[in-house]
């Protein structure tokens, strides 16, 4: 299994961001639990084998290792150097908050710039503003962020407190052997901790023992990696058997383990008990954050605690990306910096020239007075020569004009994105009812990228489809059974398991074919019936499913929930159950009427057993609640077990023995006392019982060859009631046809192939099932090699694989199954909308080509009028050739269509659509070679690209193919761990929080429940976000530029000495108070178009793709407008007051009020939708500005005392204001009026349409839906 090997041999410190590669959905589960390893070493397939191999190859050096004395925290950690189990997710403490928070914040370059300016201002020669005023804006921004951080941190503190205060039973170190509850935060490394069922695990622990005799514990890792299925972990037999002495402290047990690291899939340690060394792997450790399930209790020793646990080491935040708009913004910021430097240089050079010209006058002139006469000697007063003066003036100019680079923009953008995220999260259209999940914004700084997407790379399974596999049809011995009928709602024809007075029925009901049902009932009489039974037996046995019993409100009814890692296997097992062949264990109930319940208490854990005496005198024990039955062959065994009152050690002791006995006597003729555990999956050969209708048969699973990606099949060896031994194999068609016995049944194979083709052409996932009866010799040969392989110390995985390959041949074909991968709701419509919006949807899937194409059809990605270009090549040369052919074809089509466009006017979209279908093998030869360029060329011409059989890294490679060569924004959407690399590669990564765990979500920027939400997300929110942020950035640039230019014009009249008429307080408050709120409100709330319009006309999305709301041209226009408005604001009062007694403060107040009102009116003119919040913020801001100016002028110690009252009394003031508004706005208003009416713009037309148009009557723009008629791919007719 590629998965296991990578984990074991890979770098142990491999970050979580690089998750293990999942064999990509190839038909069968790649379950981690494998069968039939030696019971002494709980089997864990190649993973544990690899672990062990790794451990023995790379013996842990004592220096790097952590040595844990089990049950003795004092010796483990004498200096208390290891951290306690208290966790701190909180970043700050009371004392460290200020320095650390400041440090975090100043990692932003912009803040450093403002800090530098504030520091410059503190130099006496440069002090332009008062000290307070210069620090205030930065302090304000820092404060707002700090308050936000503090609030978040406080919440984390609270949850930490709750977490740390939980209690867990801990072994009393005094040696009493008792477990006493202790708070989590007081747990220490080396302590022995007990975890009960359904409780969370407090720290990373090595399992010592579990309630299960075989040492199995089931854990749910949903909090860790998000996968909801149960995982098996094992306690070593060495510790299981010695638990009493370990807890009593009489045996020294120590564990050498690696130092804490963040690899949740690997663990490297060895255990030393009684001088014996055993190696430990990832399957022997349970991690903090998981929950114990289906296991009454588990005892373990803490090895990593607190912040050293793997879950804590992995809890790093989302990756931070930078939006396209922000990157562009930086380009304009550079331009602004250039303008700023120009202004500053102009001022300082002019000042130098002025000083040089007036050199002689300045000694005496009253306003300059170069010399200080007060001291008697004639030294210069505050004058350092022209060069220094110019230098100082330059720095002062930087201070005065600093807001050219808008500091408030950074905080405004954060607030706006926060607000936008709030609305996206709250949007009921993005809420998924079925998974009860809201939209999640995991990255806060790329909201606006959602409005500029050109490429969508989508995973298929779980993203386009529900990843809920439903068994649809079967081909058994070449006969197709696909007339499935829905099970009747009252479940009368559902096969149930009767346990006492309870009915257990499968959780999921599957359609059954009546013909097949009849056939199965007549089983035994006809050959077909036998084959059908064998087929379903194979489906029921050949898997790694864990059944769970789930209660219902009706106490008499229980549901059997088949849990497994592969949804395909689940579907198959449910199908088998629907046809009457129930998978393991729970069948016990059917065994007969003589059932009794026995309750036993072992070491405080209560067990309920159902005991049943079989006709042969065998006794079957089933432990309820954890679904682990134990079989005792005679009543003798049971009697013994109960008499000792110590059932559990006895079991574990005899464990080894019992499995051997069973193995030898596969028919199980009740040899002596055997207590045999039939563990759910794998541990003992005689584990499984299947029932078949009619009557009950018992089949013993003798061996299981797990799935691996080389063989692409799995097999199971079963001892049947008729004393034959059979091998059942199930696998992908490509791998199965090679191992079939072709000499017989050739016509059946042909028929099956035809059926398979039919299945996959309607989008079903197919599997082929084969069988072989093993002769006694074959079996014995297999058995010995198998045993050897499974007990081998080195290279066990490859040995087992060899055994499997040797036995899996000459199979007789049983049939094939077709599983429907249901399309998610609304997927075809969503794809159509995205396509209309000019977004190219590429599907990248691990499925085979036929399946991918059929799904492509059913989700309307492919249409019948498309020309398909298929590239399936095995070598580089053939790849090159097929690519060149493809380019030739596509260019032909393009020229034809362009000619068609020229001749037939009015049919602009009459281009022949092209679809490129390419498979993973070809991509191996293309990606990262020079052929990439060709692929890019052809792929960008095609309307649809479908990549099948691609590996996870190839997915990322395809995203990179586009990302590297174009400026276009890419979006990747997926749900599984195999999509992680692609999600991280794309500009925007979206995770579907669906069936396959949360790894994709953890790696994503946004997460949502359904693929179809992409439409409202991109078309509505993306469009809004982009438009809003784009406008806000431009507006902020404009707003600050106007102000800076006004100050600059004034500077020209102050002998270039940077005096400001506008008070320093106003210039500081200008961008943080007078005009900040409206931009934020508009940035969050304004909508250019309604949701309905945007969804109705997906083409409106092109606005963002073409960067129409923010580009260099708009920036330059805005800047020119800013200059014009600043001229108006400055020169109207200047001209009007030129010949009056006006003082600087009064004129400054006029300028302040004029500019504040003007920029707010400017914003008001651009607002699309006025609601009360917009009104309040815009008019409120003006009012606040007026009040602030009045307040500032009421301070007697400021030079401008009472100025505003004096100037407001004059008519000239009001006339100036009015004139400024009119003259300032005329150019913009005229341009706007002209543009809106005469330059046809889709957004403008749609706005008019919203206001005047009649939506309902209008159908002209509806693009005719594809003619492909089959909407439901589920059936073959």
């Amino acid at each position, binding site marked *: 299994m590629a998965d296991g090997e990578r984990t074991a041999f890979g770098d142990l410190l491999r970050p979580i961001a690089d998750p293990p590669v999942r064999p990509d959905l190839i038909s069968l589960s790649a379950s981690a639990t494998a069968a039939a390893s030696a019971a002494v070493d709980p089997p864990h397939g190649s993973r544990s084998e690899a672990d062990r191999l790794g451990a023995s190859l790379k013996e842990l050096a004592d220096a790097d290792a952590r040595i844990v004395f089990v049950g003795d925290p004092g010796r483990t950690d004498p200096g208390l150097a290891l951290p306690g189990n208290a966790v701190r997710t909180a970043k700050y403490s009371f004392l460290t908050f200020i320095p650390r928070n400041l440090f975090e914040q100043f990692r932003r370059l912009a803040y450093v710039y403002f800090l530098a300016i504030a520091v410059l201002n503190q130099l006496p020669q440069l002090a332009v503003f008062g000290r307070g005023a210069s620090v205030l804006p930065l302090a304000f921004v820092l404060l707002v962020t700090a308050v936000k951080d503090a609030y978040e941190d406080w919440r984390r503190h609270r949850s930490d407190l709750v977490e740390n205060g939980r209690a867990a039973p801990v072994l009393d170190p005094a040696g009493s052997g008792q477990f006493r509850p202790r708070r989590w935060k007081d747990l220490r490394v080396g302590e022995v901790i007990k975890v009960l069922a359904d409780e969370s695990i407090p720290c990373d622990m090595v399992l010592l023992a579990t309630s299960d005799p075989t040492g199995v514990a089931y854990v749910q890792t949903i909090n860790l990696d998000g996968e909801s299925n149960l995982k098996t972990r094992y306690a070593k037999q060495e510790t299981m058997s010695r638990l009493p002495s370990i807890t009593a402290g009489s045996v020294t047990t120590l564990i050498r383990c690696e130092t804490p690291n963040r690899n949740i899939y690997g663990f490297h340690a060895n255990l030393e008990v009684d001088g014996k060394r055993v190696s430990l792997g990832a399957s022997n450790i349970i991690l903090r954050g998981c929950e114990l399930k289906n296991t009454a209790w588990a005892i373990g020793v803490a090895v990593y605690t607190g912040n050293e646990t793997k879950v804590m080491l992995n809890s790093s935040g989302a990756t931070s990306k930078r939006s396209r708009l922000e990157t562009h913004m930086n380009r304009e910021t550079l331009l602004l910096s250039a303008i700023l430097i120009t202004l500053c240089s102009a001022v300082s050079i002019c000042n130098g020239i002025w000083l040089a010209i007036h050199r002689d006058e300045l000694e005496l002139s009253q306003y300059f007075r170069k010399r*200080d006469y*007060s001291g008697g000697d004639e030294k210069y007063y505050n004058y350092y020569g022209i060069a220094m003066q110019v230098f100082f003036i330059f720095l002062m100019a930087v201070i005065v004009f600093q807001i050219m680079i808008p500091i408030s923009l950074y905080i405004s953008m954060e607030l706006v994105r926060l607000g936008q995220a709030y609305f996206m999260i709250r949007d009921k259209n993005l809420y998924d009812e079925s998974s*009860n999940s809201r939209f999640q914004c995991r990255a806060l700084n790329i909201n606006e990228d959602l409005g500029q997407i050109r490429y969508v790379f989508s995973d298929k399974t779980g993203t386009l489809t529900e990843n809920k596999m439903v068994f649809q049809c079967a081909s058994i011995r070449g006969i197709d059974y696909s007339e499935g009928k829905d099970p009747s709602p009252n479940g009368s024809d559902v096969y149930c*398991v009767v346990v006492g007075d309870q009915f257990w029925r499968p959780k999921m009901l599957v359609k059954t074919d009546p013909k097949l049902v009849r056939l199965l009932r007549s089983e035994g009489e006809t050959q077909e019936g036998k084959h059908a039974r064998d087929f379903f037996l194979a489906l029921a046995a050949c898997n790694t499913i864990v059944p769970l019993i789930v209660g219902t409100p009706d106490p008499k009814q229980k549901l059997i929930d088949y849990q497994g890692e592969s949804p395909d296997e689940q579907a198959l097992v449910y199908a088998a159950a629907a046809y009457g062949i129930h998978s393991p264990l729970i069948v016990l109930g059917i065994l007969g009427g003589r059932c009794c319940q026995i309750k036993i208490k072992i070491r405080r854990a209560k067990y309920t057993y159902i005991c049943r005496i079989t006709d042969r005198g065998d006794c079957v024990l089933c432990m309820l609640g954890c679904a682990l039955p134990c079989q005792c062959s005679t009543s003798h065994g049971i009697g013994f077990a109960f008499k000792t009152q110590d059932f559990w050690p006895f079991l574990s002791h005899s464990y080894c023995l019992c499995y051997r006995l069973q193995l030898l006597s596969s028919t199980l003729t009740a040899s002596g006392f055997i207590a045999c555990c039939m563990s759910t999956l794998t541990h003992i050969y005689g584990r499984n019982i299947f029932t078949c209708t009619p009557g009950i048969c018992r089949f013993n699973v003798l061996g299981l060859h797990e799935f691996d990606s080389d063989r692409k099949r799995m097999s199971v060896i079963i001892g049947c009631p008729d004393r034959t031994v059979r091998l059942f194999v199930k696998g992908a068609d490509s791998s199965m046809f090679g191992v079939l016995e072709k000499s017989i049944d050739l016509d059946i194979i042909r028929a099956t192939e035809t059926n398979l083709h039919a299945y996959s052409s309607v989008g079903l996932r197919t599997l082929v099932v084969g069988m072989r009866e093993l002769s006694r010799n074959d079996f014995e040969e297999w058995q010995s090699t198998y045993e050897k392989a499974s007990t081998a110390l080195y290279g066990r995985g490859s040995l087992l694989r060899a055994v499997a390959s040797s036995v899996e041949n000459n199979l007789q074909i049983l049939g094939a199954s077709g599983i429907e991968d249901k399309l998610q709701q609304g997927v075809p419509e969503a794809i159509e909308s995205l396509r209309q919006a000019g977004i190219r949807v590429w599907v990248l899937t691990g499925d085979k080509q036929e399946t991918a194409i059929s799904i492509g059809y059913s989700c309307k990605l492919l249409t019948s009028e498309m020309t398909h270009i298929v590239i399936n090549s095995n070598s580089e040369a053939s790849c090159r050739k097929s690519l060149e052919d493809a380019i030739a074809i596509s260019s032909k089509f393009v020229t034809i269509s362009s000619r068609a466009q020229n001749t037939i006017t*009015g049919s602009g979209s009459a281009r022949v659509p092209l679809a490129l279908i390419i498979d993973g093998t070809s991509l191996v030869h293309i990606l990262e070679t020079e052929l990439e360029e060709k692929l890019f060329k052809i792929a960008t011409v095609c309307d649809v690209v479908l990549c099948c059989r691609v590996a996870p890294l190839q997915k990322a490679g395809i995203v990179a193919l586009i990302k590297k060569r174009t400026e276009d924004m890419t979006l990747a959407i997926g749900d599984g761990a195999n999509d992680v690399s692609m999600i991280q590669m794309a500009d925007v990564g979206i995770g579907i929080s669906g069936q396959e765990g949360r790894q994709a979500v953890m790696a994503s920027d946004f997460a949502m429940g359904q693929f179809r939400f992409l439409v409202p997300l991109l078309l509505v929110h993306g469009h809004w976000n982009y438009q809003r942020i784009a406008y806000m950035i431009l507006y902020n640039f404009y707003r600050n530029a106007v102000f800076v230019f006004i100050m600059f014009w004034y500077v020209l*009249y102050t002998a270039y000495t940077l005096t400001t008429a506008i008070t320093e307080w106003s210039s500081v408050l200008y961008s943080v108070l007078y005009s900040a709120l409206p931009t934020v409100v508009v940035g969050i709330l304004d909508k250019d178009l309604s949701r309905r319009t945007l969804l109705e006309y997906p083409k409106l999305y092109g606005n963002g793709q073409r960067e129409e709301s923010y580009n260099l041209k708009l920036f330059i226009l805005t800047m020119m407008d800013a200059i014009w408005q600043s001229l108006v604001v400055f020169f*109207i009062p200047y001209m009007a007051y030129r010949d009056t007694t006006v003082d600087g403060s009064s004129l400054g107040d006029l300028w302040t009020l004029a500019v504040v009102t003007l920029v707010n009116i400017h914003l008001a003119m651009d607002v699309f939708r*006025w*609601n009360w919040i917009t009104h309040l913020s815009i008019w409120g801001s003006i009012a606040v500005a007026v009040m602030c100016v009045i307040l500032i002028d009421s301070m007697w110690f400021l*030079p401008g005392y009472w100025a505003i009252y004096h100037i407001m009394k004059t008519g000239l003031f009001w006339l100036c204001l009015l004139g400024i508004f009119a003259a300032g706005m005329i150019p913009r208003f005229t341009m706007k009026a002209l543009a809106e009416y005469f330059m046809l713009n889709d957004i403008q037309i749609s706005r008019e349409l919203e206001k005047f148009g009649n939506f309902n009557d209008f159908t002209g723009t509806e693009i005719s839906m594809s003619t492909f008629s089959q909407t439901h791919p589920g059936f073959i007719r």
Partner: protein
Amino acid sequence: MNPRGDSTSGSDGAAEPKRKSKKPRYSRFTQQELPACKPLLTPAIVVTTFAFIGIIFIPIGLLSLSASGQANCIPEQLQNDKVAFIQSSTTNKTCSRTLTVPKNMEGPVHIYYELDNFYQNHRRYVKSRSDKQLRSKASETETTNCAPEATTSDGSVIVPCGLIAWSLFNDTYSFAVNSKIIEVNKKNIAWLSDKEHKFGSDVYPKNFQMGGLIGGAKLNASIPLSEQEDLIVWMRTAALPRFRKLYGRIETDLAANEQITVTIQNNYNTYSFEGKKNLVLSTTSWIGGKNDFLGTAYLTVGSLCLFLAMGFIILYLLKPRTLGDPSYLSWNRNPDGHY
């Protein structure tokens, strides 16, 4: 034995514990559906706006022009050179000029002195003052920003300190019509707010103009600063390098063609910075002073708006289009783009 469940229903979901639904609650706010008005720049609105501005602005412009016309203004340039002459304390700096009143001027006629090329807004200059010192006697020593006129050479504090006070304008004017002296009222020329709150009534000039270089006027040390109105007017620094400051008022009317003889004590040194001094007599109108600019500006803006209104009407007539016609949407238009 083929037990068939007679189970009641397929209640699959019932087994799951009831989860707290995370479904967002509907509110107009969270769904961004607040009632809002959506203004559009329709032709009607555009034309109305321009016409409205034009119609408002033109009368205002005319009115301001006429108001400005009513204000009379007699600037008189006072020319003299030689720094040495002005710096000498002994020479007689009196000179006289004759002005002709162009029009009837109703009292009060404001007398302004106008300085040109005097950067009262120079950074060195505007900062060189101490508002605290001016306000109260207790803060007499607050002279931090007053350098180089903070203290005398022996270290005692100058009140009022700083360059601004030091450079106080000190030309004096007296007016006579036909040898009859016209009374100049120098009371209430400063802002009342300044007199009451900014300049202390207990602050008396001290060590003023005792340094090596005399900047301007001397102050009577027995009058508190709050009564030194010339100083108060001067200390309200002008916005621009050419500025006027109120000198006093003539309360009587001046008839047209009257010959006024102005006797000027030309004390203030403008020669050190190539400055110019003007004397201005002016009445005020409701918009303040004589100024044609605003009226002209209003007329210009107003007529521009009217012109634009006309222009838009013509444009709308020449190239009409239906608002909100979906056939104008880019994907509905013909590929060659005409509509």
